[in-house]
């Protein structure tokens, strides 16, 4: 099928999940200083989940390592971002 849900899209991507997260979100900053929560909308892998208390829950396992969240985040220091260890993370096959 051509029209697909986000879950169906993500199932086509291969990830080799590293033991430690390569992105660290500081939920205190999200909770207390950020009103935009841009990461929730722009992340192409939909990895940022807003919490009831205003914080952000982050899943690093299915990250495309694109850097959008880090660029879009308007709060200094809320997202610490690096590439995962060599050989880990997303592995595109056809893109």
């Amino acid at each position: 099928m051509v029209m697909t849900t986000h879950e169906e899209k993500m199932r086509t991507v291969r990830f080799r999940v590293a033991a430690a997260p390569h992105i660290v979100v500081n939920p205190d900053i999200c909770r207390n200083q950020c009103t935009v929560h841009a990461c929730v909308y722009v992340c192409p892998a939909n990895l940022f989940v807003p919490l009831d208390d205003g914080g952000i829950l982050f899943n690093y396992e299915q990250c495309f390592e694109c850097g959008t969240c880090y660029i879009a985040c308007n709060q200094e220091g809320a997202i610490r971002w690096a590439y995962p260890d060599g050989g880990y993370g997303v592995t595109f096959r056809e893109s």
Partner: protein
Amino acid sequence: MTTHPANQQFDVIIAGAGPAGSAAALLTARAGLKVLLLERGEYPGAKNVSGAVFYGSAILNELIPGWWEQAPVERHICRRNIAFMSPATAVALDFRCAGPGYATAPYNGFTVLRPKFDRWLAAQAEAAGAFVLTSAVVDDVLREKGRIAGVRVRREQGDIYGKVVIACDGVNSFLAKKAGLQREFHPHELSLGVKEVIGLDPAVIEDRFHLTGNDGIAFEYLGAITEDVHGGAFLYTNRDSLSLGLIGQISSLVERRKRPYELLERFKAHPAVAPLVRGGKLREYSAHLIPESGWAMKPKLYTDGMLVAGDAAGFCLAAGLYLEGMNYAMQSGLAAAETAILACQKGNFSARTLAVYQKHLKQRHVSTDFRAYRHAPSFVNGPRLQNLYPEIVAQGMEQIFRVDGAPKRKILPLAYRMVRQSSIKPGQLLRDVYQVARTYLW
């Protein structure tokens, strides 16, 4: 210069095995230099995403004559289509050329699948003598006596030394930032591309797009296709699949609170696009950042012991008519390689020597092209060109072609009325006409 164990000392260390890095590695290795090409993915291309049309066929042909005979290419592009979209209308400029250079060697451009193409190109560098090391992520530069003397790989005993470091580590270049050559970016300078590769039978592709044999077509879409988000969309034909994607400026996505993959779904459902993708099956979804601001986000390109090339240097031309990155990546990688070879001959790796990089970039038409189109990105990403004009063009065509018993109007009064009805002020319109002319005409 401090000496290090021979196995940890290279002439050239290149971070990133994309088209810039692999081209640089190929050329420096051919010159007999000891070259290390580092790639963080499991294989070269594993982290790389673009449209992807590779317009650098003639450039690569000089390095590897008849390269397309052996490389994993999809289709050569001999038809291009640029469409202005409103929610229900599309007005397109359709270009087809069966003439020399487009439909014959060395061809004008090829669609490629990056994981396959980049892997092949890195293998060519390896065959030329470069040491290609995968699963090696580079975190930082090493400094010695005020100059950059190597890189730090995130592994035990990961320090490795080189006379010249070439940073080809992509749009998020950590190396250029660590070396103090690049600043942090603003969300309006970068765009996010989301993409799908959709499998389709080759016979269906040929019938549907009126292609013969290995011909291919590139569609590009402007206007309401991205709703009110600044950006565009594309659809390219591969051998047995389509690559289609949607590009959105980050600041604009944030402002409009739009999810990129939902826009991608609406793009596929647009009446002008849906029949093209019908019956296909999703093979892979991907995403990547695009350094769309070009000249405005160019870092300082060299310092003592280091050069920057490819996306890391912002060499991606997103100028409406043109959407090119891989060819400039390759050209800048080659220019960096020529610079490194010269520096090795001289035995001098100071910024003063490496400044010749600028001359090589000019000779390879990289800096000249980016300078010439330096106004394009901000103009192309402006609100009027993004939404208003495509809408006016699309609506205008809709009225010109409509037959409903009302008297026919000539184009000029129609255009006059449409402009009057829109929110454009005459002064703005004049300025934009001047901008278009300044961007593309002279």
